[in-house]
């Protein structure tokens, strides 16, 4: 475990010094803060605007960071032979993959936390509300991004620097819009078999990103919301374990 944490730790240190990430964070923080200006035109829903826009931006930035980091830290390091030194004599490929994934998730979480913290503070100072939904949604976004990171890690051990993130985005897209794909197929008069296959792939075989929304938490009472978050955590942990486990097996057999 110490090797995994060590890889994750140094990935974090490396990333926090990257000017690209610092710039991205600054721009995101400024954009979210800029929402405050919308107060001049508000209809009494400014908190909602700040929350919706800010959390969407945080989710989008997080997805970009997660994909970029995982790709640059796994695929690019393999292509540039940077990883050879440690893979030959310092850690196993399983340690490498999980360490890189963990580091990417922690760094992404750190950045997303800053934006959610900003949203929380703006709402607090604007309306005096203690927005617990902001914290809950941060947690949901974090779970979602950890899953996206695991998918990206899987593709990074097999595909090229361009194909790996493209496939990850594709799976992310299918995971969000799977039910619409089934709906479109149904409208086009596809056979029951095709509909069943499509439903199985988008609903069960591929990770379902539709679970990662706040609506389930808002509509439930406290027990229901806690239960939903618990189930979502278990689902994410299981999916991450399966994807990272498969990545590790594939990576062990891969010639570098």
């Amino acid at each position, binding site marked *: 475990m*110490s*090797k995994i944490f*060590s*890889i994750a*730790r*140094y990935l974090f*240190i*490396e990333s926090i*010094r*990257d000017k690209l990430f610092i710039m991205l964070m600054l721009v995101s923080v400024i954009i979210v803060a800029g929402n405050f200006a919308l107060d001049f035109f508000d209809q009494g829903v400014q908190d909602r605007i700040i929350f919706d826009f800010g959390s969407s931006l945080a989710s989008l930035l997080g997805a970009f960071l997660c994909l970029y980091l995982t790709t640059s830290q796994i695929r690019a*390091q393999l292509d*540039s*032979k*940077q990883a*050879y*030194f*440690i*893979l*030959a*004599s*310092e*850690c*196993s*490929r*399983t340690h490498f993959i999980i360490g890189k994934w963990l580091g990417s998730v922690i760094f992404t979480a750190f950045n997303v936390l800053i934006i959610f913290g900003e949203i929380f503070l703006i709402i607090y100072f604007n309306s005096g509300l203690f927005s617990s939904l902001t914290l809950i949604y941060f947690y949901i976004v974090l779970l979602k991004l950890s899953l996206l990171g695991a998918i990206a890690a899987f593709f990074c051990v097999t595909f090229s620097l361009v194909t790996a993130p493209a496939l990850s985005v594709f799976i992310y897209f299918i995971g969000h819009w799977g039910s619409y794909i089934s709906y479109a197929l149904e409208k086009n008069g596809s056979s029951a078999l095709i509909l069943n296959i499509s439903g199985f792939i988008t609903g069960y075989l591929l990770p379902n990103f539709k679970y990662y929304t706040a609506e389930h938490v808002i509509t439930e009472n406290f027990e229901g919301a806690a239960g939903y978050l618990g189930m979502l955590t278990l689902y994410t942990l299981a999916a991450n374990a399966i994807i990272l486990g498969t990545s590790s097996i594939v990576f062990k*057999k891969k*010639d*570098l």
Partner: protein
Amino acid sequence: MYMSDNKIAIECVNLSKSYSSNLNDREKSAVKNLNLTVNAGEVHGFLGHNGAGKTTSIKMIVKLITPTSGDIKIFGRDIKNADYLDKTAYIAESVNFYQFLTPAEIIDFSISLNPVSFAAFDRRDLKSKSEEALNETGLYKWKDVSVEKFSKGMRQRLALALCLLRQPDLLILDEPGSGLDPDGISLLLKIIEKFKKMSKTVFFSSHHISEIERVCDRVSIIKYGELIETIDLSDHAKKSVDIESRYLELMRS
């Protein structure tokens, strides 16, 4: 786990590697039935033309690629089931590190990844040993500068500093002289000689016959994936061998 008292450091038996070619679906052999023995404590050179299979052979030895057939033993232990080779250090032809970390941090990272390798040192000594290794490789004044500003040769020196610090039983270098200036090559040969004095095993590939002649006890020559000769260059045999003319003769035959 390792048997460092084993008399053979690397033993490759009938080692082969084939790749399928996308153009005509034919298998292309990069290495064919390589039988190579590197004795413990010797400096062993690996010579061959471009595309002869040196890097492929080395990558199989360090488990970066899986052989199509054949066996590899490191200090008597079959490496098939090993995740990585913890008493071995490998430096690839072009070395890269985390670009925003400093040499001092990269050393810390290496120590944290493989603390067993540094167990011989007292924790308090480790810092002075790190500085010593950086000093010896001419990187001490750069120790707090991020690696992104380093040239290829400086990265190579950093990798050598890590090896000096870890003192692995087996040091494997793939074209270590490429990217190094004459001063760097001289340093590299000094480090190899230092390892030799410590009875460590060094196996390295090179195009530079002068490097091989200066430090190697034996040299193996590979041509089109096949080992064609191993020449003894130890002190007693050195005088009678003109390795350059022998190498050229074998390449032209």
